[in-house]
C-alpha cells in the first residue's frame, strides 16, 4: 500500500515535470513529489522487510534522501535565480 502510493506520487511528479509551463513550477513538482514518493517507497519496503538490519539500512537511505533532495532542489533554484530566470513567463520552444 505504501509502495503503491509512493509510486503514485513519483508518477504524478513526473507528469507535473513534463506538463507545467514555467521553470519554477516544474521545479516545485519535481522536488516535493520526488522526496515524498521516495520516502513512501522506502518506508513500505522497510516494513515489508521486517525487523532486520536491511530495514534499518533502507530507512537510512530514506533519511539521506530526505536530507539531500531538498538541498539539491534549493541549489538548482538558487542557480536559476542568480541567472535571472524570470518566473511566470512561458519559455519558447527550442
Amino acid at each position, binding site marked *: 500500500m505504501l509502495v503503491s502510493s509512493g*509510486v503514485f506520487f513519483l508518477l504524478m511528479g513526473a507528469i507535473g515535470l513534463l506538463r507545467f509551463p514555467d521553470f519554477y513550477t516544474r521545479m516545485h513538482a519535481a522536488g516535493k513529489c*520526488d522526496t515524498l514518493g521516495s520516502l513512501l517507497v522506502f518506508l513500505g519496503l522497510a516494513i515489508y522487510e521486517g525487523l532486520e538490519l536491511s530495514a534499518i539500512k533502507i530507512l537510512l537511505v530514506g533519511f539521506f534522501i530526505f536530507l539531500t533532495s531538498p538541498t539539491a532542489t534549493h541549489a538548482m533554484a538558487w542557480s536559476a535565480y542568480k541567472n535571472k530566470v524570470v518566473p511566470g513567463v512561458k519559455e519558447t520552444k527550442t
Partner: protein
Amino acid sequence: MQGFFLVMSLMILFATFLALCRIIKGPIIIDRIVGVNVIGTKTIAVILLTGHLFDRVDFFIDIAFVYALINFIGTLTLSKYFERKGIDNRRVTR
C-alpha cells in the same frame, strides 16, 4: 508479491521515461539538471525494488546508497558550476 514489485518497477520506469522527455525538451539547462536529479531519485527506488525482486536486498542497499551520494554530489556540482558560469537564457521570452 514478486509480480507487485515488478509492476511497481515498470510504473517507475514509465515515470523515468516522462522525465527523459523533459530532459530532451527542456528549454534552459537547469531544466535538464532537474530531470537528471529526478531520474537519479527514481533509479534508487528501482534499485531497491529490484533487490526485493531477486531476494538479495542487502547487496542492493549499498548500491542504492552510493547512487544517492553520486546523484546528490553531481547535481550540487552542476548547479554551482552553472551559477558561476551563467546560463544561456536568451531563448527565454521577456
